[in-house]
C-alpha cells in the first residue's frame, strides 16, 4: 500500500520557535505535520535528502477556540474540522464555517484534518476558505520576528501557495464578531460524503442594513486558482434594492469572474454554470429568511 519511506526523521517541537528553527535548519526536507490527511498522501515517494516531519501536535499555541470580550474569536490552526463543526461558539457566531467543516471528507477525516492545514494546503477547493473569506477572517502568521495578521484571501496566493516564508507558521485565524451577518454555505459534489467540491460557495448578507441597501459578500472555491471573493457580483448587488433579476444578474457576473479548470471531477463550463445556480440560490434563501424575520 502507500508507504512514505521517504520520511527519514520525525520531530515533535513544543513551541512555535522550535518548530520554526527546524524549518530553517532543514530548508529542503522539513514538512509541517498537522492532521496529516493531505500531507501523508502527497509526500514524494522518493527523496534524496529524506523528508523530516515536524509535528505541530504538542504546540499549545496552535490549539483552541477562544472568544474575547468584544466577541472576536481566535481559532488555533491545529483545531480539527470536527471541533470547528462542533464548537458552540462557531455554530452560533459563524455557522457557515461550522457547516463547511462538517462537510469535509468523512467523520474520521474531520477528526484528523485541521482548519490550519485546510488553508495552508491552499487547495482551490478548500472547504473552509469561502466562509473564512466571507467572514473577513485574518490569518495569524507567526514568525520569529513577531506575529502579523493577513486577510485569508491574501494569505492564499495560488494553488498550494501561500504568503508564508521560510520559518513562518500559520498560528490560527481571527474572526471579528459578525454582528447581523447571515451566511450560507453550499458544496456541490457527486456524492454526499468523501467529496472534494466541484464548486463551493459561501454567501453572506448584512442584515443590519435596510433591505434597500444590503451588503452581500460572495466567496467561491474550486473555480479559480485560489478561493476568492466575487467582488463584481457583490458590487452589482450593493448599490440598490435587491430584486430577483438583480440576483440572477449577480450570479452571471460571479460566473464571468471565475476561471475554473476542467478536470476529472467536472468541466470548467459546468463549474462556471453552477456558480450562477448556487449564488442565486443562496442569496435568494438569505433574502427570503430576512424578509420572513422582518415581518
Amino acid at each position, binding site marked *: 500500500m502507500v508507504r512514505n519511506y521517504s520520511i527519514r526523521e520525525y520531530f515533535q517541537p513544543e513551541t512555535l520557535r522550535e518548530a520554526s528553527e527546524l524549518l530553517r535548519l532543514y530548508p529542503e526536507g522539513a514538512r509541517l505535520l498537522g492532521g496529516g490527511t493531505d500531507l501523508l498522501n502527497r509526500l514524494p515517494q522518493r527523496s534524496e535528502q529524506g523528508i523530516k516531519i515536524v509535528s505541530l501536535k504538542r504546540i499549545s499555541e496552535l490549539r483552541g477556540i477562544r472568544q474575547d470580550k468584544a466577541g472576536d474569536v481566535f481559532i488555533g490552526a491545529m483545531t480539527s474540522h470536527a471541533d470547528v463543526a462542533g464548537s458552540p461558539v462557531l455554530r452560533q457566531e459563524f455557522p457557515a464555517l461550522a457547516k463547511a467543516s462538517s462537510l469535509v471528507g468523512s467523520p474520521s477525516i474531520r477528526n484528523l484534518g485541521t482548519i490550519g492545514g485546510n488553508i495552508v494546503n491552499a487547495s482551490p477547493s478548500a472547504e473552509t476558505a469561502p466562509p473564512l473569506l466571507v467572514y473577513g477572517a485574518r490569518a495569524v502568521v507567526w514568525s520569529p520576528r513577531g506575529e502579523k495578521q493577513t486577510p485569508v484571501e491574501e494569505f492564499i496566493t495560488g494553488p498550494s501557495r501561500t504568503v508564508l516564508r521560510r520559518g513562518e507558521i500559520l498560528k490560527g485565524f481571527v474572526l471579528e464578531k459578525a454582528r447581523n451577518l447571515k451566511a450560507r454555505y453550499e458544496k456541490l459534489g457527486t*456524492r454526499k460524503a*468523501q467529496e472534494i467540491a466541484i464548486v463551493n460557495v459561501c454567501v453572506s448578507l448584512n442584515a443590519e442594513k435596510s433591505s434597500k441597501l444590503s451588503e452581500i459578500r460572495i466567496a467561491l472555491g474550486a473555480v479559480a486558482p485560489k478561493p476568492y471573493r466575487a467582488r463584481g457580483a457583490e458590487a452589482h448587488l450593493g448599490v440598490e434594492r435587491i430584486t430577483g433579476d438583480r440576483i440572477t444578474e449577480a450570479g452571471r457576473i460571479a460566473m464571468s469572474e471565475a476561471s475554473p479548470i476542467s478536470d476529472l471531477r467536472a468541466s470548467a463550463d459546468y463549474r462556471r454554470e453552477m456558480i450562477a445556480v448556487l449564488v442565486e440560490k443562496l442569496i435568494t434563501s438569505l433574502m427570503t429568511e430576512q424578509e420572513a424575520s422582518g415581518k
Partner: protein
Amino acid sequence: MMNYRVSYVVNGKPVTLDVQPHETLLSVLRERLGLTGTKEGCGTGECGACMVILDGRTVNACLVLAADCSGADILTVEGLAPDARKLHPLQESFVQHGAVQCGFCTPGALMSAKSLLDRNPNPDREEVKTALSGNLCRCTGYKKILDAVDAVAKKAVVPSSEGERAIGRSIRRSDSLEHVRGVSRFGADITRPKMAYGKILRSAHAHARIRSIDTSRAERFEGVLAVVTGHEISQGYFGVDIKDRQVFATEKVRYRGDAVAAVAAVDEEIAAKALDLIEVEYEPLEAVLGVHEALAPGAPVIHESLHEYEASFEAEKEGNICTIANVKVGDLEKGFAESDVTLEETFTTQIQHQASIETHAAMAEVDVHGRITVWSTTQKPFAMRRYLSQSLKIPISAIRVIATKVGGGFGGKLELIVEPYAVVLARKCGRPVQITYSRDEEFLSTTPRHQTRFWVKSGVKKDGTLVARHVKLVFDTGAYSGNGPTAVTLACQLVGGLYRIPNLLIEGFCVYTNKMNCGSMRGPAAPQTTFALESHTDTLAKAIGMDPLDFRLKNLLEKGEKTGVGQPLVDIDYKKVVSETAEAIGWGKIRKEENVGKGMACVFWLSGGWSTSATVKINEDGTVTLLTGAVDMGTGYLYTSVPQIVAEELGVRPEDVQLVQGDTDQVTYDHGTGGSRGAHTVGKVAQMAASRAREELFKEAAKKLKVDVTALGTQNGWVYVKENPKERASFAELSYDRHIKEGGPVIGTAHLLPEMDEIDPTRVKGLSFTAFKGVTIGCHAALVEINPKTGQVEIKKYVAGHDVGRAINPRAVEGQIEGGVSMGLGFALTEELRIGEKGEVENPGFHDYKLPTSLDVPETEPLIFEVPAQCGPHGAKGLGEPTMAPPAAVIGNAIYDAIGVRMHRTPMRPEDIYREIQRCKALKSST
C-alpha cells in the same frame, strides 16, 4: 534510520516500542502488535477499513504516523469485547442483523458505530448514516449495518431466526463471529516465517516492443532476494476462453499494467527501490485506446498471433476482434416493414471496477520437494491451480492452493492475478513470498467490467407489439480477451431473454484495445445490456404513447416460450414479478409532481453451471462435516444457505454443520464461485451428498432398529421409526457403531455437472457456451427527483424484486439485493475508471473512483418472489449477480419520466444530466 520510542495504551494494555519515522499506526498495529483485525483497504484514508478509536475519536490508522501519537489510548476491534466469551452489543447486533457479508469492512464499521454511540446514545438514522460515511462497504448496501447500529441504540429485540425447518429462515452466518472479532484471516493477514515481500514492475507504455530488460543493478541491491523476468522462466499461455496471455510480457507490452519483471526483497521498501533499478528499453508503438480506433482499417494489431491462440470454443476472430457472435431469429427486414414505428438509439457504458475493499493478495511457499503452497484471495482455488500450472508449466500435483477469507470478490478474484508472481519469486529465492496489491495496482492491473457500446433498433406496432429488433454490441476487452468472449455470449443471451421478439438480429463483437484486461464483474454483461435495452424499452413505449409497465406486460415472455437464442423458459413467472414490483412503488397511483419521475427496469439472468462435488460426513458425536471445493467470496452462502440445505436434508441443526473448504489438497473439485452458482449449484451438490449420507445412516439404523429403511425418518440428530418415533437411534451412536463394528465412516459423496440448457443451434453462431439452466428475472422500480438546475438526482424510494426460486435464508437474500442495488447505483451514477490519452488510469484511488457511501445509497425495499426452479436445491435460483443490473436503466427511465430527457451513457453524473438537459433545451428552441 532513526527509531523513536513510543508508548500507547492499546485495548487497555500499555505498550512501549520503537518505531521508525515513516511507520503508520496501521502498520504498527498489524505488523508489530499482530492486531490484524484492523484492515488496510487503500492506505489513503478513504475506505475506512483501518478505522480505530484514538483518544475517543475515530481515525484512519493509515493516516496517523506511529511516532506522532505516542501517549494515545487506542481501541481496535480486538478490544471491543475484552471478555473473549462475550460479544460487545454492536458485534452481537451486526451478527444478528446480517450486517456482515465479506467481513473486511466490518471492524472499521464497528469502530465508527462504537464511537457514535459513545458520543450520542440515541442517534437518528441520518446521524448513523453520517457516522458511517467514511466506511466504504461494497457488499451490504449499508442498510443492514444501519439497522444493526439502530437496534443497539434502541435496545431493540434481536430478530428471531427460529423455525421448524432448517431452510427458509434467517440463521446468522457461521463465520460472522470471526469477522466481528477481527480474527478472520484475509489475504494480507497470512504470514510465514522468513517471508519476503514481492513487487511487480509494470509497463510504462500502453503499447510497445520490449528491446531489452536489464535487472543487474536491482539484483545487486542489498536486501534483494530475487528478480524474475519472463526470459528466464518457462511460460505458457493462459486465458478463460482464449489463451492469449502470459505472466510476464517478454516481447511486447499491451497495456500500462502489463508485468515486465518482479522483485522479492527482505522488506517492501527495498523491493520498491529495486523496481526503480530495473532498466527496460521500450520501442513505443501506436496505442489503440478505443474500439473505434481498434476497428479502423489499418489499425495497429495488438495480437499478431491471434490465430495461433488456443480457444475453448470456435471463436471467429479477425484483426483486433477476438470474438464475433451472432443470434438470428426470423426475418429482420420483414419485421421492420411490418412495424408502425421504428426507433434506434445508441448507449455506451464505462469501465466499472469491482473495487472490493480487500485488494488482491497471495503468499507462495515452496517446500523441500519443490511443492508449492499458495495462499490466495481467489474465488476459484481449483481453477487457480490449473491456471498456475498452465501459465508456469508446473504440474498440477506440485501446487496446493488454499483460499483465504475473501474480502469481497464480485468476479475480480476469479482469474490469475497476483499469484504467479509470488510463485516464481518464492521458487527463485527459496523463501515464502507475499505480495499484496496496493489500491492503485488494483485499479491499474486487475480485471474490471467491460466498457461497451450498444446500438439498438426496434420496430413496434401501435398496439405495443414488439416486431423486430437489431442490436450491435461491442465489448472493449482490453489488452487480453479475459472474460470478453463469455461476456459477449452472455449479452447475446440476455438481449432476447425478457421479451417476445419474432424478428431479431444480434451482432456481438469483442475487441482488443491497449487497456487493462476486462474480466467478470458481478453479472458480466448484465448492467450494460440492461441499461441499453431497458432504457430503449421506455423510449419505445413513449414513442407509441403507451405506459412502460403495460408495454412490458404485453411483450414479456411466458412460461413455455423461448428466448432469442431458443432457450425454453420453464419455472418462471415474469409478469408476477414485474406487476407486483410496479405495485410496490405505487405505479399508476403516483401523483405527477414537477421534476419527479418513476422508472422501472427488468433483468433476465441465468445461473448455475460447471462441475462441482461435495462430501458429507457424520461425525461420532452426531455433528456433520461438509467438505467442498467451493469458497465464499463474501456473500455468505457457504455459511448460511448451504449448511441449511445440508441440515434440512439430514434433520440436524444448521449450526451442527461444519465446513472444510477452499484447500485443493483437502477437498474435491469445484469450478469456483461465480455465475451466482453458490446456493444454486454448490447447494445442490451438498444436498445430494447429504442425501447419500442419510442413506448410509438409514442402512445402519435399519439394522439396529430392525426395520426397513423405508420406515425411517430423521429429526434433531435422531433416526426414528416413523410409525413409532420412540424407537430411535442417534446420529452419534450410528456413526460410532459403524466405525467399531464395520469400519466407518458414515459418509456421502456427490458430484454434479449441471446440464446446460438447450438452445437453438440454427439461431446462434460464435457463442462461447450454451445457456445455463437457472433462468430468473428481477424487476426494480424507483421514484426519483431531479434538480434540473444542477443535474443532481435524489432517489426517494427504491424497490427491488427478484425471483429467487426459494429463499433458503431470507436475510441473506435481502443482503444480496440491497448490496447489488448499491453497486448498480454506483454504475448508474458515480463510478467510472477513466483512461487518459496515454493509456494511463486517471483515477486509481477512492477519491476519484467514487463508490457510493452510506449517505448516497437509498434504503432499498427488497421484494422476494419464489417461483421454484426444478434444477435448484428446494427450487433455489442464483441471485448475487442480477441484483446489480437494473439500477442504471431504472434511474435513466425515471429521469426520462421526470423531465423528458433520455440519458444514453453511464455513469449519469450530475454534470452529464445537466448537459443533456441543456442540449435538449437548445434543440427545442432551435426547432
